[in-house]
């Protein structure tokens, strides 16, 4: 560690590869992230709840301001885990596996919330809680993959042993992300096609678009804040495990 910091100017990447340094930096960043996230979520939800009722959907349109950010997060979190999985497999970054393990339960919560809020929105607007069509089914598969990943990352006592298989599962599962994104274009589905990320610009008035973007930003920041806390906890958990083994060895010797 010392030779890295004195001999050559270390890159940001290698600074963050040192868990102790990561704990220091993330500790400073954490309160700011939570603060910004809470402000943005509160502003987004407030603007969303006070937005005018839609001429067709009435007030159910307000479900959009949480449903769409949850859907966006469910895909973004898997993408973050995929980048981390590359970190495990290609660079053997010591924190990459910590990142995957910490992100999985948070991703699962946001994915199930996307499914639940979508279902509650679908009942009055589509007349059904659920259909097995392309969009809904592919998101449900994503939720199952999160659950599988949670099981895999917690199945073995020694964290290093599951790191590689977890990283492979994450990368294989990543093929589902473009399938979810384009499912509304490729197949017939009850779900509407994209209305924000479009070639011809968002098909939505500012009264809806502004709260939606603020809310999406807020929940994204909230994910990164929670992810940081969960990563810090995972580092401590691994230290506790290592020290417990050390203590056991000392007691024996």
């Amino acid at each position, binding site marked *: 560690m010392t030779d*890295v910091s004195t001999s050559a100017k270390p890159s940001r990447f290698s600074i963050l590869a040192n868990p102790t340094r990561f704990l220091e930096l993330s500790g400073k960043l954490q309160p700011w992230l939570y603060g910004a996230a809470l402000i943005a979520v509160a502003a987004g939800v407030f603007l969303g709840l006070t937005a005018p009722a839609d001429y067709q959907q009435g007030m159910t349109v307000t479900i959009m301001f949480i449903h769409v950010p949850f859907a966006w997060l469910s895909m973004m979190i898997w993408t973050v885990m995929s980048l981390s999985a590359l970190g495990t497999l290609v660079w053997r970054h010591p924190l990459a596996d910590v990142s995957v393990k910490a992100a999985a339960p948070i991703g699962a919560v946001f994915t199930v919330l996307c499914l639940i809020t979508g279902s509650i929105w679908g009942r009055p607007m589509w007349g059904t809680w659920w259909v097995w069509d392309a969009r809904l089914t592919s998101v449900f598969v994503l939720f199952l993959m999160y659950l599988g990943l949670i099981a895999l990352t917690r199945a073995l006592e020694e964290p290093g042993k599951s790191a590689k298989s977890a990283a492979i599962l994450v990368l294989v599962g990543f093929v589902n992300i473009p399938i979810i994104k384009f499912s509304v274009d490729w197949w017939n589905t009850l779900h509407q096609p994209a209305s924000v990320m479009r070639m011809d610009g968002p098909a939505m008035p500012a009264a809806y678009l502004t709260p939606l973007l603020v809310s999406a930003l807020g929940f994204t920041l909230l994910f990164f804040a929670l992810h940081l*806390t969960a990563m810090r906890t995972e580092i*401590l958990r691994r230290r506790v495990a290592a020290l417990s083994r050390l203590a056991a060895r000392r007691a024996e010797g």
Partner: protein
Amino acid sequence: MQADYFAFVASAYGISALAIAGLFAWVFVDAKAQRRALQALEARGIRRRSEAGGSRDAPGAAR
């Protein structure tokens, strides 16, 4: 017509708030438990080599 939809909107927001509150609780309870466990080990005099002034570096440090 608006009143009919209120229950849907309220339950969507309510369930989301509950789930996220639960996520927060789990993340912070876990963080506290690991901090306590580490402190308990250190109180018994079990420290990481890098912090005990040893020559060897912490496991997982930069190459």
